[in-house]
């Protein structure tokens, strides 16, 4: 068991090291640099080579790549993520201002999508081939194939413009609102982006839940249970528990994908999350912010995987077998 844990930690360590390197290299491989962004296009020509170098040196971008890499790695160790080029603030502050909104939006969407997707998926599997299964399946596929910005715009047109129930943009309550009504307004502003992102995330979870339960229902133990005279819920309960494993896996994997994938939804609803920050920073070639966010994301995905690894034994006793017995 201990040896197994050691190997897992070593694997994760290797993954982190690879991420740290990619994190540094990828943004710099994109054509253009921060000066292209900092100086408006028609003014860029006024810069002499020396002035351009002076700007680059302000951000340490004129140094040779190995020196930049060394500073980046030592910064990671000491927790100094440098300053954003686009925002002129420390990267930690830039991320700090937005991470709460992302947790609220993406966390909420993942949980809702897991809940709804699993319920629908299990229901479909149980009624496989019936009209309600086909209906749900095609409904989910339809929603899944619609791009999130389109769903978002539709929701805005119906619920904001036509009905006036929810605001079109923003996360913060009005400036004069405080206390409980501020929380109410934050929730109100959360609804449309949350629904949009949930709809975007539900597809894969639904499909996995559905196919997992379908294959569980074909297992011998289900046949055995039926043979013993068990019907309906009793059978379903046994099978569903076993079908949860792949659902948890896909749900946790979606967390990482959704933080970045939320960029479109965050842009449509002007929501100040990390997705939009990534998008803005890519446009600005804001290397320090990109490094910071990607690192955070990578750590998040690794943590999600770790949580998955810890959850599986609780869901499925078969995973609890010591590795020696598995061999």
């Amino acid at each position, binding site marked *: 068991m201990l040896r197994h844990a050691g190997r897992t930690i070593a694997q994760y360590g290797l993954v982190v090291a690879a991420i740290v390197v990619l994190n540094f290299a990828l943004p710099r491989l*994109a*054509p*253009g*640099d921060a000066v*292209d*962004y900092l*100086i*408006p*296009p*028609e*003014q*860029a*020509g*006024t*810069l002499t080579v020396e*002035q*351009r170098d002076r*700007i680059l040196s*302000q951000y340490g971008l004129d140094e040779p790549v190995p020196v930049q890499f060394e500073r980046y790695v030592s910064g990671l160790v000491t927790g100094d993520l440098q*300053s954003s080029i686009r*925002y*002129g*603030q420390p990267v930690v502050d830039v991320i700090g201002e*937005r991470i709460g909104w992302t947790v609220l939006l993406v966390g909420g969407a993942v949980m809702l999508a897991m809940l709804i997707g699993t319920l629908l998926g299990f*229901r479909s599997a149980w*009624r496989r081939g*019936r*009209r*309600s299964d086909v*209906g749900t399946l095609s*409904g989910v596929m339809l929603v899944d194939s619609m791009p999130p910005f389109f769903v978002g*715009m*539709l929701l805005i*047109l119906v619920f*904001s*413009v036509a009905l*006036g*129930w929810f*605001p*079109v*943009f*923003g*996360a*913060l309550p*009005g400036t004069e609102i405080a206390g409980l009504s501020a929380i109410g307004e934050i*929730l*109100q502003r959360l*609804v449309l982006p949350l629904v949009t992102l949930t709809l975007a995330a539900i597809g894969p979870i639904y499909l996995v839940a559905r196919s997992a339960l379908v294959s569980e229902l074909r297992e011998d133990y289900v046949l055995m249970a039926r043979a013993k005279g*068990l*019907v*309906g*819920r009793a059978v379903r309960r046994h099978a569903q528990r076993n079908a949860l494993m792949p659902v948890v896996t896909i749900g946790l994997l979606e967390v990482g994908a959704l933080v970045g994938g939320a960029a479109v939804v965050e*842009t449509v*609803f*002007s929501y*100040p999350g990390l997705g*939009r920050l990534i998008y803005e920073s*890519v*446009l*600005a070639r804001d290397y320090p912010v990109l490094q910071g966010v990607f690192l955070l994301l990578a750590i998040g995905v690794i943590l999600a995987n770790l949580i998955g690894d810890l959850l599986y034994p609780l869901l499925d006793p078969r995973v609890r077998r010591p590795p020696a017995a598995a061999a």
Partner: protein
Amino acid sequence: MLRSRLVPRSVLAGLALAAALFMPAAGAQEPEQPRTVRIAISGYENNITPFNVSFGAFPVTHDLMHLVYDSLFWSQAKLEPEPWLAERATPNEDFTEWTVELRPGVRWHDGEPFTAEDVAFSFDYYERFPELSGRYAHHVFDVPPLEDAEVIDPQTVRLTFRQPAPQFPIMPGADLPIIPEHIWSEIEDPGTVDEELPIGTGPFKVTEIEPDQRYVMEANPQYFKGRPLVDRIEMPIVEDPSSAFQALRAGEIDQVARNLPPELVNQFADASGLEVLEGTRFESTQLYFNARRAPWSDPAVRKAISLAIDSQQLVDQVLLGQGREGNDGFIHPDSPWAGENNGHESDPQRAERMLEEAGYNAGSDGIRRDERGRPLSLEVLISSFDPLGLRAVEQVARQVRRIGVEVVPVALDPATLRDRRQAPEGEAPTYDAYLSTLETHAHADPDSLYYFFHSPGEKGFGAAITGWSNARFDELSERATAQPPQQRQALFDQMQSILAEEAPVVVLWYPDGNYAYRPAAYEGWISDPGHGIFTKRSFLPAYADTGAASTVEDVGESSVWPWVVVGLVALVVLGGIVAVRRRRTEDPEEDWGG
């Protein structure tokens, strides 16, 4: 089974409850409350100082900053700008020295008095950090180059330039934001955003900054041009244009500080509770050739392409009529420097003859070849954020194909596009042409023709823009820089004729500015040439429109977009009803073993 049916119902009930709870209370505003106007801007500008604005709200960045700061004169779009922080400015005989007398009694937002020290300090500071405020500082170190800023007395400052600066009141006088010495003298790294709110002399003080979310400004009650008519401006940052205009329709904001897309103009002009006001920002969209790369280095090829382009057709089909055709002399027709408007010459037959005479003969595919057999195939780089530009170039491709030239549009993200435009020093860039959009500053600055088209040298953009070079143009533009307006205008006309003949650039169109707002929140908006309606004068008692605002005439056909949406919503609703009915007819107990 029973449970699984209950779940969706309870979810529905919960949603309905939530919706009811969160329904905004209507008519909550009392008449005594301070007058707040909510204006959506398109991007975050850090803390709105000249050194760290990111031009995210382009093209309104300049007007946004000038809500907080003032310049000596206002505005640059006028031939004779109005004295603003200055009371008057007097030149010496050869315009190398300007003595500026300042308006007395002006205070900074923090209560400190504004003096000549601040003005002298501002000029020195811009000169000290040229690279950090390139947009502004180059009017201090470049044209005209500052030699000295000297304080004569607390209300008078003398600015000396190394060359005659007859246009000083316009540039930099009506452009450069004056910054407070008592704040900035201690700042050594002006690009860094610290927590402090910007301090200016302008009509509004910034009271809240939420990165990527919003700015809040409050009226400066002691403003020297009179207390602004609006007490508070809330400026949410809404990047997505369709979200911004939907929010305006939904009544969540009162103005969108960007141009209405052509397809929305009629819809918004007809909408109840909304007004549309026309006001040009001197915007232009143009095609720049890389004049250092064959065959685009041949003026005959460039001019032939220009002649093959039907600018009016682009305006009609892409801008849906909401714009004006290009001017081969580049300058916006409403700019004080436009002079005699040459318009755009469209003559495909002449274009073919020119190419014929220059020896570009068509190959078997109908595309002309140069003497080395290379096809005339023009790759045009376009920002992927410019859907109208992309459509325009596709249209241009069709027009130019008729004279045997191929045009290939390439959409790139802005940073990649800028990278492609550059080349190591001494080498020619490798692009063929690119599309760009400019605003007021490029058409109102009396030296813009110098900046954009003078050959590469110590000053100006030169090769960075087109790489085009013309000795006669250089000579005229150098002379113009030192001339007072009348003489300058005559030189400008000659310069524009050279541009029209050599076509280093083809202006595709000048879009109309159409700005939508809710008159119920504020109806004082004015259309200020060169600024549109989002500009400080719209809020000042001496300038704001206190009568009724005029609306845009109804032109063209109405858009189909709302009907598409209605159709889709109907489809979804219909689908939902069918699904529900089907579920009802299903036997709930029919499932496996149930």
